[in-house]
């Protein structure tokens, strides 16, 4: 493996019920009825989802007309604004893995509501994994401040940037994430993002 690529096993992310319900669009104030099969979904998934990530550092070069991200060039204004003042960036792909997709398919077979809740759990898992990764990255770069994550599809960053990200991070071989011709990620609960490094 290219030593510039870092594979991280993020392990098990605790399932936080309140977060899962938020992703399921459960109204915050509403009482949770006994019939809501949340506990059942969490039990189905317990101990089965292992989150993984791969990341790599790149120098950032800003010119009048474009950004050289090290793995691709883009004219995106919103990303330029987001990375203002950064000389380096971290690119990562994080996934809740194929097991999460299998769990969603299994939950969906029980009922659409199980499916919705398992989707929400998947979202909570991959977002939790991204948080855990970014905390670890922040510790690895103590001299820097990390910007929030910025993903293709945000602002004017085109989804097609995914192609460059996938070849830069070798996602398919490193952590088993595939990009389809329609630019969807498989497993579905996966996130790619750029984080800027600002000197403190």
């Amino acid at each position, binding site marked *: *493996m*290219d*030593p*510039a690529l870092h594979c991280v*096993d993020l392990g098990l992310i605790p399932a936080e019920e309140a977060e899962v*319900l938020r992703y*399921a*669009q*459960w*109204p915050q104030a*509403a009482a949770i*009825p006994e*019939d*809501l099969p949340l506990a059942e979904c969490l039990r189905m998934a317990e101990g089965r989802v*292992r989150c993984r990530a791969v990341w790599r550092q790149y120098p950032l070069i800003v010119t009048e007309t474009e950004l050289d991200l090290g793995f691709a060039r883009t004219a995106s204004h919103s990303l330029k604004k987001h990375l203002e003042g950064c000389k380096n960036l971290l690119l990562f792909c994080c996934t809740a893995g*194929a*097991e999460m997709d*299998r769990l969603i*398919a*299994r939950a*969906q*077979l*029980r*009922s*659409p*509501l199980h*499916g*919705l*809740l398992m*989707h929400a759990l998947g979202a909570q898992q991959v977002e939790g994994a991204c948080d855990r990764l970014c905390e670890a990255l922040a510790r690895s770069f103590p001299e820097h401040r990390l910007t929030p994550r910025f993903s293709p599809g945000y602002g004017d960053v085109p*989804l097609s940037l995914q192609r460059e990200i996938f070849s830069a991070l070798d996602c*398919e*071989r490193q*952590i*088993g994430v*595939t990009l*389809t*011709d*329609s*630019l*969807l990620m*498989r*497993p*579905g609960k996966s996130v790619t993002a750029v984080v800027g490094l600002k000197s403190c």
Partner: protein
Amino acid sequence: MTLLEHLRTGPFFLDGGMGTLLQAAGLRPGEAPEGWSLSHPDVITGIHRAYYEAGSDMVLTNTFGVHPLRYPLEQCEAMIRAAMDCAFAARAALHDGRERFVALDIGPCGKLLKPLGTLDFEEAVGCFAQIVKLGAACGADAVFIETMNDGYETKAALLAAKESCSLPVLVSNAYGSDGQLMTGGTPASLVPMLEGLGADAVGVNCSLGPDALAPIVQSYLACASVPVLMKPNAGLPRDEGGRTVYDVTAAGFAASVAALIPQGLRILGGCCGTTPEYIKALREAVGGTMPPPLEDKNISAVTSRSQAVVLGQAPVIIGERINPTGKKRLRQALAEGDMGYVLNEALAQEERGAQVLDVNVGAPGLDEAALLTRAVEEIQAVTDLPLQLDTADPRAMEQALRRYNGKAMINSVNGSEAVMDAVLPLAKKYGGELVALTLDEHGIPDTAEGRLTIAERILARAEALGISRKDILFDPLTMPVSADGQAARITLDALRLIRERTGCGTVLGVSNVSFGLPARELIGSAFLTMALQAGLTAAIMNPCSDRMLGAFLSARTLLGHDPACAAYIDHASALSVQTAAAAPASPASTPNAAEPEGLRRAVLKGLRGEAASRTRAALDAGQEGLAIIQSEIIPALDEVGRGFEAKTIYLPQLMMSAEAADAAFREIRAAMGGQAEATRCSIVLATVKGDIHDIGKNIVRLLLENYGFAVTDLGKDVPPEAILEAVKRLHAPICALSALMTTTVPAMAETVALVHKEAPWCKVMVGGAVLTEAYAREIGADGYAKDAMGAVRLAETLERSALFT
């Protein structure tokens, strides 16, 4: 000695890393090493020669990254030819008379196979086959498949190698620190599949240093009957001023690897970070140590992507429910291509403790070959239970066996010549646990000895083809005791006799014994107990029957396979919970069960169980099903729908109400004997091609069904032609499409245009995260719905307009 004999004797030395040495020789980061066979042949030849001189018996060609998915075929050919020439030149330069070998090296193709990725299994097989043919034509002595981190891709590469050449094939996988392949395989699940496909050696390389890999190698040694190989990294890499360095020295590496030879390791080398110095040290550390002789571990196992079920220890349950014989609803589902029904049967049996699932989709008028393959793929996407492929059609069997991820059970062969000729070669080629029925062209012998004679004949034929005895299980055939009072006794006698004389495992489909009798499970469970007592290896049975499962678990406990009776106690306590739940509710808990207000409230609150019980009570009290729907359920759904539109009710609450209504509908349907299924028009529903999001589509389906539409759900990633086909077949007045991504809206537009052109009567409604009213008009849709309630309202409008145009 032939190469195969060398491998089976050992110790046999492979080479070490290539990339590390190329970097030292000036390979730039990101530059492809395989290109150097053409641009710097002297460097490549020099590396091979250094390994031979250090003591390698076989080197791997510089072809790891050569793959038809990455390079045009002519370039693949040029690189393979050049790489082989480099290895041959290195070998020819040495004149010490020692025997040396060259293996064609094959790495992963870099793409994940479906369903995890996008690469089709047969396409992968085809690409690997091209590499193997080129290498074999150049004169390779062996094929070395390495660094594979997905079992399914490993199968594709190994199958391609076996189909394209007759050279020895060595297979090496790359494991993570959790002891699993990236896609979830373990040595126990992988080795039976690789041996079944004919791998000549199996093992591990890369990923970790020798000490971290040792436990994985030990797992291989515990279950592999073929030679085991190991090619670890020189520890973990780190970046030191732009150079990659590894933390295990040559001496430490050699000591760790050599220590595994007395345990049975016989093929050894190094991977990333190792150099000729490491191989030299390894040779010295091994000295004259010889591994113990190779022995057959005699393990009978069926496997899936990640699980292995060993046969011949505790008895095993094979779930029988995926079989359309006598099941009208399943036959209908298969005819309509509704895999949801099949998948639900799979999960239900898994929850009840089935360890293997029988899959039979044969019914008149169906394309069994296509259907069996599809069923196998879809079932394997949701469960890790190994499968038993059950078909009498050799073509269906072969197609499904090829694509099966793991080592399957093959059900079945029998003693008739034609069937043996068709099925035994499949078992030999693809591997599998073969179920052999003790009947032949003359029928089923009515004595135990007669069945034994057929078993012995099948066994002789199978062994002559090279199929191992451990991979054969005999089915001495259960016959209805109602037709012949001696039938069960003969079957059990045959079971004992075959077990004693052949040493092979046994299988019985137990349900057949009770055919034609009342209270079938009563006598069926007794027969099951007796068969287990007689030594049955695996029972094909219905795990969803309490009585059958109870008999199985009790017998298993009594036969000593349930330490501390744990499984039995679990089952018994689950039973008592069920009994309590099924007991008639006390009048106090449901004061006005038949009271309509109660039902409306249950749907509003999303109380599934209560909605069902209140509907049942209302029906029992003599109310008409349709009246209950019109006066209670629909008004409740409307109220919830209005709340959703007014944003006082949220999506999960809407879904809970919809599911409660669904539970009420089921009761009404059951009471009406399955009639009056749908009261409104047909709707064909699908997520468009290229898009795999289906959560929104599934919610829409649930609500449309609530409102009485007859929904045909084609699933996700559905090509336009398939959608059109369904619209035409059903003459559906409405087609509803979902797309979540800007990148899949073009496929939606294409579908809209196709349906409008070829099925002009059909109105197309669309929805999905990226769509808007304007966008929907732009792609030519007849209507846009922003959410599931909107879809119901729109469908009602479109239905009216369809009826009046």
